[in-house]
């Protein structure tokens, strides 16, 4: 039986496939990151980045509403949304390019397309941290005090941030390991170049007023 999809049907099935793959692989980055990233580095199903992109865009809308207010400053809020979303996209492309170029210099054997999916999923810890921080800002606005509850919250916030940071570190390592086929020594070598560049980029983003903490 010959079954052909028209353009609209193809788009809908691609989106559905993307959502299913995104759900599976997001859980995979928590449950079995090694196996998931090994699969992602050779996968060419880029439609699974669409749900992630949508969540990021919605999050930035929420964070700009929180910062500037929907009714108070709608133009500034909209401009902020465009800036942060574009900034996140440019940051993503710059980081992927930086990892690719740095890896080629040390003898990495992967292709640029091998990095898109692994690095895309590496944004999950970043997104989760930003969401938690925004919600905590909304529910328990800073500054924190030296009271018992202030100290407990501060401790839990630091512990939560460290868990997310270490998870991100694992996903970064797996991106280079499977995306560019690097070993540990070469990963450390590439990182010694990428991290200072990342810090300078973060300072630039801060000075431009786009991100206080970069969405890397």
């Amino acid at each position, binding site marked *: 039986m010959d079954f052909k999809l028209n353009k609209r049907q193809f788009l809908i099935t691609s989106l559905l496939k993307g959502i299913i793959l995104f759900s599976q692989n997001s859980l995979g980055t928590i449950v079995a990151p090694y196996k998931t990233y090994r699969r992602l*580095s050779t996968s060419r199903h880029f439609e699974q980045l669409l749900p992630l992109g949508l969540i990021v865009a919605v999050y930035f809308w929420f964070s700009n509403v929180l910062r500037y207010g929907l009714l108070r400053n709608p133009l500034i809020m909209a401009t902020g949304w465009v800036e942060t979303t574009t900034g996140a996209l440019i940051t993503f492309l710059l980081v992927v390019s930086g990892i690719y170029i740095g890896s080629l210099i040390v003898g990495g054997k992967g292709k640029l397309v091998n990095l898109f999916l692994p690095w895309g999923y590496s944004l999950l810890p970043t997104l989760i941290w930003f969401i938690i*921080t925004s919600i905590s800002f909304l529910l328990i606005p800073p500054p*924190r005090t030296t009271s018992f509850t202030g*100290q407990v919250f501060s401790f839990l916030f*630091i512990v939560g941030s460290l868990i997310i940071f270490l998870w991100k570190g694992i996903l970064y390592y797996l991106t280079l390991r499977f995306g560019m086929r690097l070993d540990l020594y070469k990963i450390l070598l590439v990182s010694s170049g990428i991290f200072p560049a990342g810090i300078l980029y973060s300072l630039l983003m801060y000075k431009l007023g786009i991100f206080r*903490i970069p969405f890397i």
Partner: protein
Amino acid sequence: MKEDPIFLKLQDRLSEVSVVSSQTLGPLTPLYKKTTSWVKTWPLRVLIPLAFLAGIVCEVILGERIIKLVSLLQHGF
């Protein structure tokens, strides 16, 4: 044999596993293998206690400055 689905699946699996060569670190290889075995599946079971310990160390080192740090980080989004 070549059309056997189990054989084909095995072939795919072996190709997937051999995407990168095995990591060796000389005399540190057993330690590396042991460490990575903990984080290959459910890394959170290692990350949560590790982060908790690191949090206690930060609390001891930074003291009340941790509160200022958290107030700063809360503005970071």
